[in-house]
């Protein structure tokens, strides 16, 4: 496994419009590593994700991306933010992943079509490629969005709350899929969740946002930290 750092955050402060949400963020993400970004709702997980993805700039500090060629991100957003008015088929949603490398005025190449088919196959959705994306179940949509992220040929896969709001069986299948992608392809993955029981037990690196501070730890350490919060305090 390659041990080079894919991403390194050094003294990063994040937020919107100059207003700091989280500061002193320091952690590396190694190639082939699986990390979970864990914290309560509204703690700044998605903002941190968007900062890493270069969607919003950091207020302070530096983010160093890999070595050599620019880092390619496969981003899986929270599916509820995607408008259902768009009449996309599942195949078209996945095809979007190839738009970064396509030039204007060129029709979709055969290579891209094959890549899309492969990505759909990898997530077990090839049979449903002509179905309406907006009519799919939460779990199916999540698989399609993972396939779209894979179609970018990513160096790092970033998933924002991939199993929130879907049934337990679909949750299990999504986690199995993500695990398979990580283990078989050695894909670097970072996943957001706000629920401890969504974190796979084998994950070693957890980035925990706790009381506006970013701390690194194992699952056991995070659970114990969460339990401390649950102990009622005497006033």
């Amino acid at each position, binding site marked *: 496994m390659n041990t080079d750092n894919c991403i390194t955050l050094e003294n990063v402060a994040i937020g919107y419009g100059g207003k700091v949400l989280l500061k002193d963020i320091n952690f590396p993400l190694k190639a082939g590593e699986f990390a979970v970004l864990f914290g309560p709702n509204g703690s700044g997980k998605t903002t941190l994700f968007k900062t890493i993805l270069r969607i919003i700039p950091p207020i302070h500090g530096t983010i160093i991306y890999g070595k050599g060629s620019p880092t390619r991100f496969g981003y899986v957003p929270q599916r509820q933010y995607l408008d259902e008015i768009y009449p*996309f088929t599942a195949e078209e949603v996945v095809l979007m992943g190839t*738009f970064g490398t396509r030039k204007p005025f060129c029709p979709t190449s055969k290579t891209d079509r094959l890549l899309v088919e492969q990505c759909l196959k990898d997530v077990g959705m090839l049979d449903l490629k002509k179905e309406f994306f907006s009519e799919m179940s939460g779990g199916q949509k999540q698989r399609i969005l993972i396939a779209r992220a894979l179609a970018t040929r990513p160096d790092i896969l970033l998933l924002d709350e991939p199993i929130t709001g879907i049934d337990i069986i679909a949750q299990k299948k999504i986690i199995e899929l993500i695990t398979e992608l990580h283990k078989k392809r050695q894909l670097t993955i970072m996943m957001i969740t706000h629920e401890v029981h969504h974190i796979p037990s084998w994950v070693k690196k957890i980035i925990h946002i706790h009381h506006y501070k970013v701390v690194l730890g194992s699952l056991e350490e995070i659970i114990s930290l969460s339990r401390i919060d649950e102990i009622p305090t005497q006033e």
Partner: protein
Amino acid sequence: MEQFLEILSPHFLLRNAFYAGLIVGLVCPQVGIFFVLRRMVLLGIALPQVSNAGIAFAFLLHTIGWHFLPHMESEKTMALTGSIIFSLIAIFTLAILERKRKGFTENRLGFTYVLAGAVSILFVSWNPYGQTEVLSMLKGEIVSVPDFYLWSMLAVYGTIFICIVGFHRNFVVVSYDSDMATTLGKKVVLWDILLYLIIGIIISLGVMTVGPWVIFGFLLIPPVAARMVVRGILPFCIVSSAIGTAASFIGFYISYRFDLPTGPTDVAVLSSLLITICLGKTIARFKR
């Protein structure tokens, strides 16, 4: 049948108006799909009204002897300039406010619509000499389209059509998922600006040719109707334009055959198509 063949003849007296309608029917739905998909339909109502105000303002200036183009330039060129300037100022102001998330979108668009409507009437009422011509232009008298105007329209709408088709992927991904677009290396702000520029130009020129609510009809109804019958973004774009072009053709024929105003007939045909599709879908669902 005789009248049908007459319309298709290259020597047909009103051929420019017929061709202009077809161009609007083909190109407007391609821009309209982004109104529908980005849920900016209200902008489609407000902007033609703003364009109207620009036309009325330009005519007013022309009448009182104030020219922002040389005096010998025709009133139509001046009106077009007024229309474009007003539309672009409005669309970029609205886009900036949208980005800064100041207040509610509906409130802003409602205010823009009512203000533009009111000032259009005031500009026209202050302009006693140009009233007839301004009103005929605002009503969308498609009958008189000069050669130069048709060619200009073909050039501008043709360029817009090529841009929309050629940059289709970028417009789609930026509209659907701007965060994803950024991770793919797309300059979201630049693509948004280009789309707004296209919207501003297509509405300004369209309002001058077919009137404000006809242009709104061609922007809105074909994509709404197409969305009901197709699956997939590419068929959606193709069917939208096909509906627009067909409605323009049928509308022109009916208006010529029964001596009706073309603009309202076009909108009536578009609306009939939409209602037919709605009914068809309801019956099909009921049968299942």
